[in-house]
């Protein structure tokens, strides 16, 4: 590993109880803890998940379930990230 580049982590997210963790993308982080925190910020900004795994080569690290409420609930109240939060006058099309 080069001194300057962080390793690449694959991110898996379980969107709902009862569903599988699903691969959503990747990111770079120096270690598993930061990879999980960055994955939370990058891939669950719209309450897309309740659990995260990050994988570097052969290792799998899962997010701490006891953190679930401070991990995911804060984005519940950020309704402005959804288009339906905005009023557009009648007759406006293609938006």
């Amino acid at each position: 590993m080069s001194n300057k580049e962080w390793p690449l982590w694959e991110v898996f997210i379980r969107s709902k109880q009862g569903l599988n963790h699903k691969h959503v993308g990747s990111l770079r982080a120096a270690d598993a803890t930061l990879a999980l925190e960055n994955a939370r910020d990058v891939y669950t900004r719209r309450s897309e998940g309740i659990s995260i795994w990050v994988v570097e080569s052969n290792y799998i690290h899962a997010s701490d379930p006891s953190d679930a409420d401070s991990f995911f609930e804060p984005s519940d109240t950020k309704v402005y990230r959804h288009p339906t939060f905005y009023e557009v006058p009648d007759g406006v099309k293609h938006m």
Partner: protein
Amino acid sequence: MKTMDLQELEKRFQEKIDKEIKIEPNDWMPDEYRKTLIRQISQHAHSEIVGMLPEGNWITRAPNLRRKAVLLAKVQDEAGHGLYLYSSVETLGADREATIDDLHSGKAKYSSIFNYPAVTWADIGTIGWLVDGAAIMNQVALCRCSYGPYARGMVKICKEESFHQRQGYESLVTLCNGTPEQKAMAQDAMNRFWWPALMMFGPSDDESPNSAQSMKWKIKRFSNDELRQSFVDATVPQAEILGLTIPDPNLKWNEATGHYDFSPINWDEFWQVVNGNGPCNKERIEARKKAKENGMWVREAATAYAAKRSMKKTA
């Protein structure tokens, strides 16, 4: 590898494309296909990141807390888009930091629109409406791109983008229904951003030599001019609802074609801006370089800490 094999591989590759089967990272692909994608996706990623700057510069000045939060969330999304795209570029064997270095050295390009300044609050609404609107027009088409990771990234990005355009339009509705100063501010922004927004679709089809191959490989589904026309057709009625005038005396509905006619684009300006002579090219690249330089010691710190900790574990 024998020539016969290569021809056979290329034939099979094209058959997959024709049958709408997605190409995945480990599948065989022609070198040129890989190169084209690396160039296009990294350019797209750079555009997301550089695109944070003109709007980011208004976060501290947003006129109320709701708009401040909306703008923060919007610009933050662009950082996320940049990340998704860098991660799809990495599936092609390119290295994120190396592609970023190409941006900083001027070797790699990004969307020319972000070299224009955002000087008033109305520019923020206008960027959301026109610039994100034009980007969405492009990106929706890319959701069906033949390269799997890029197409999937685009689906996620498009879902997030729709709030970007709506928040911009909503902000302009407020200005256009506000005081005369506010309305004038909106019109002024429209005057400055209309033409650069149309330029976002790139050179006309007859000036765009790589387009045919990209269409054949289904990296692209529509030509630059087709997308530009769709954008004009969708946007003109939206401007009418706002009561804003589009700065083009020749803009008019053409009954025969079922599209709006508009004036020719100033391609001279386009190429000047692409090649470094836009009003903000230098500031944009300087800001990104500075961010990377200021981040080096942070990167190194986290790497050093991770190494120390794994040594402790194995000790």
